[in-house]
């Protein structure tokens, strides 16, 4: 029978914290932690002392007081009697609107320019090079101001549209007015709106209007149509794989699944177009795309699109030529090669830098200030701060908003990235 004897227990000595590699890293981490915390405390304390020295307290109550100023572009109900909080929401929605529009157009522009830059056609290739280098190498702010100035200085004033021999006229069948205050386009309105219609006192006819519920219903029906269309397509593919024959008329069925329900909803709601009309000083009716929105949207799209073009080009070039050759050897058409072989592989290279570009675009939208676009930087971070004197609070909220928005965009793009990333089995 063997007996086990424990080695004699060594006492723990304080010097082991420094000289014993088992403990040293923990010691360093604890010390570093305390230093960081001490630094934090010092900084916060500094803020508190200096704020009180400047006679300012730290208070978010200003958000609930009356804003008192008007905002031209508002996606939600807002008047100067609303609160600063409401003004901030209006600004946030305006920021999100221009970021959303910008991301979409920048991606479309970028993909087209990126693919065309690889074109074998010399002129097309060089033209895209000029576009990319021109927009990439000139500051965004300049482009915003240039587009804004062109719109303001060279387009006709609304009053030029007036009279028998007007100097300017509306385009596209009298439906779109391009003025130096922006572009007026027809608006979709409903005579049987879900939000209820006001009734004309004289004729008793309903005045067409649009409510959020109408638009939500329309969007929901269209989205559902796309799902249905996808289902029809998958079923057709399954049939084709089983029997070797693709069922006839799939394309029309897919198109019908999207279009028919939307048309039914439009008819049921009594959809009609509200055309812009010259009234008083300005056009009224329709949708007013202000110069500030157009300048910001275009400049952001063109500028970011140039970067995306390079990312797309790099992604396509990263797919080895052997893939194209192998695909040709299998007898695939060039368009299939691009869609089924090259792009799916290129996506893995394209998506991660694309996320950064979307984040950049969103944050760059704060340059709105230069053309008076009322984004969150101009409402909460501009007028509200200025009228209430709450710089610290306002800037904290603003920073928090941009941080949160960027993180959410990253999150969704990362989810998408994971879905296209190489699946290792």
């Amino acid at each position, binding site marked *: 029978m063997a007996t086990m004897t424990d080695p004699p227990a060594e006492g723990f000595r304080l010097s082991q914290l420094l000289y014993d590699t088992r403990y040293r890293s923990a010691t360093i981490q604890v010390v570093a932690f305390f230093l*960081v915390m001490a*630094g*934090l405390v010092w*900084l*916060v304390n*500094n*803020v508190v*002392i*200096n*704020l009180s*020295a*400047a*006679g*300012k307290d730290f208070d978010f109550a200003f958000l609930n007081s009356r804003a*008192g*100023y*008007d*905002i*031209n572009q508002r996606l939600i109900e807002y*008047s*100067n*009697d609303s609160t600063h909080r409401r003004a901030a929401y209006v600004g946030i929605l305006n920021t999100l609107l221009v970021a959303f529009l910008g991301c979409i157009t920048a991606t479309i522009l970028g993909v087209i320019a990126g693919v065309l830059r690889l074109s074998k056609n010399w002129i097309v290739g060089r033209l895209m090079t000029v576009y990319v280098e021109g927009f990439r190498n000139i500051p965004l702010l300049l482009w915003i101001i240039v587009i804004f100035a062109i719109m*303001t*200085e060279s387009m006709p*004033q609304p*009053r030029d549209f007036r009279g028998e021999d007007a100097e300017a006229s509306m385009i596209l069948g009298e439906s779109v007015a391009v003025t*130096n*205050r922006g572009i007026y386009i027809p608006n979709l309105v409903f005579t049987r709106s879900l939000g209820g219609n006001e009734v004309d006192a004289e004729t008793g006819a309903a005045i067409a209007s649009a409510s959020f519920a109408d638009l939500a219903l329309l969007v929901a029906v269209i989205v559902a149509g796309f799902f249905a269309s996808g289902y029809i397509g998958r079923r057709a593919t399954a049939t084709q794989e089983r029997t070797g024959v693709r069922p006839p008329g799939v394309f029309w069925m897919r198109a019908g699944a999207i279009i028919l329900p939307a048309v039914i909803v439009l008819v049921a709601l009594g959809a009609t177009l509200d055309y812009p009309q010259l*009234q*008083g*000083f*300005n056009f*009224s009716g329709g949708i007013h795309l202000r*110069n500030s929105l157009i300048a910001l949207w275009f400049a952001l799209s063109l500028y970011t699109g140039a970067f995306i073009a390079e990312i797309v080009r790099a992604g396509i070039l990263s797919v080895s030529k052997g893939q194209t050759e192998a695909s040709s050897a299998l007898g695939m058409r060039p368009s299939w090669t691009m869609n089924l072989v090259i792009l799916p592989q290129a996506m893995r290279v394209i998506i991660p830098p694309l996320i950064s570009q979307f984040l950049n675009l969103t944050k760059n939208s704060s340059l709105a*200030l230069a053309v*008076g676009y*009322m984004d969150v930087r*101009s409402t909460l971070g*501009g*007028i509200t701060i*200025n*009228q*209430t*004197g709450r*710089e*610290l609070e306002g*800037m*904290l909220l603003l*920073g928090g908003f941009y941080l949160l928005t960027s993180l959410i965009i990253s999150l969704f793009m990362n989810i998408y990235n994971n879905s296209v990333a190489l699946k290792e089995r």
Partner: protein
Amino acid sequence: MKKSVFLGTIAATALVAGAASAQTLAEVQERGVLNCGVTTGLTGFAAPNAEGEWEGFDVAVCRAVAAAVLGDASAVEFVPTTGQTRFTALASGEIDLLARNTTWTFSRDVDLAFEFVGINYYDGQGFMVPRELGVSSALELDGATVCIQTGTTTELNLADFFASNNMSYEPVPIETNAEAQQQYLAGACDVYTTDASGLAATRATFEDPSAHVVLPEIVSKEPLGPLVRHGDNEWGDIARWTLNALIAAEELGVTSANVGEIGASTENPEIRRLLGTEGDLGAMLGLDADWAARAIAAVGNYGEIFEGNIGESTPIGLARGLNAQWTDGGLLYAPPFR
């Protein structure tokens, strides 16, 4: 770690703000230069001339304070500020004095923690429209597009005026007067609204001023004056009494031409006290005896400043109106120098 960097930035911002709350006089004297906030350019009030020298009605206040404190009216560093940046610039200590046709309001005085040292121009908000629009009253402006400078009281007055008259408008927010001018002349807005004095000054720079009319309605009270930070009363007193000295000088008949000899020759004790030949008012302010004399010699009395920059003999052509001395039926009334 990210968080600590973030807070660090805030703290650094606040540090700058806190460091500059007291002892402005000593700082200015040590620096040898007065940092004075003005507009980014409003002819007659503050704008660089052809030689690049700042001149104007508000600039004169800066120069007078510099002359009183530093003995040199040119020892001024002019910091152009927009409606949005002016208060931050003053609160952070970037400027010592803000003379930028700024309206004295309760919340700016109390809540923003500034000290208005007086009123150098009694103004009111007006509207300017192109003559060809055929508008004769601000009440006909329903539906108009209006250019406004953001971060100003005019922005709030405008909202109130249109709301109380049950009219709608489309605001076009802009940052500076120059930008507003460009937008207005391009016809991107029908109306430009700001203080009536600012409208007159802007119109004077147009190619054809007569093609534009300032509508008769004055929709607000806009007492414009220079201001300093709360909490440094000595510095506030210097700015206040320099302005009062300019106003009193006009009332007492002291001009930049006679200020050199009138102090010695006059029998009027108030003039003697003002110019430091009698009493020790300068010492009470922490300055030398002839502080006021230097200020008046440098820029002239209030009347001279008014006539030279914005008065009827200039292209801007503003009448004294409310800004006449109380003895002439105006509102200017300097407290006694005693």
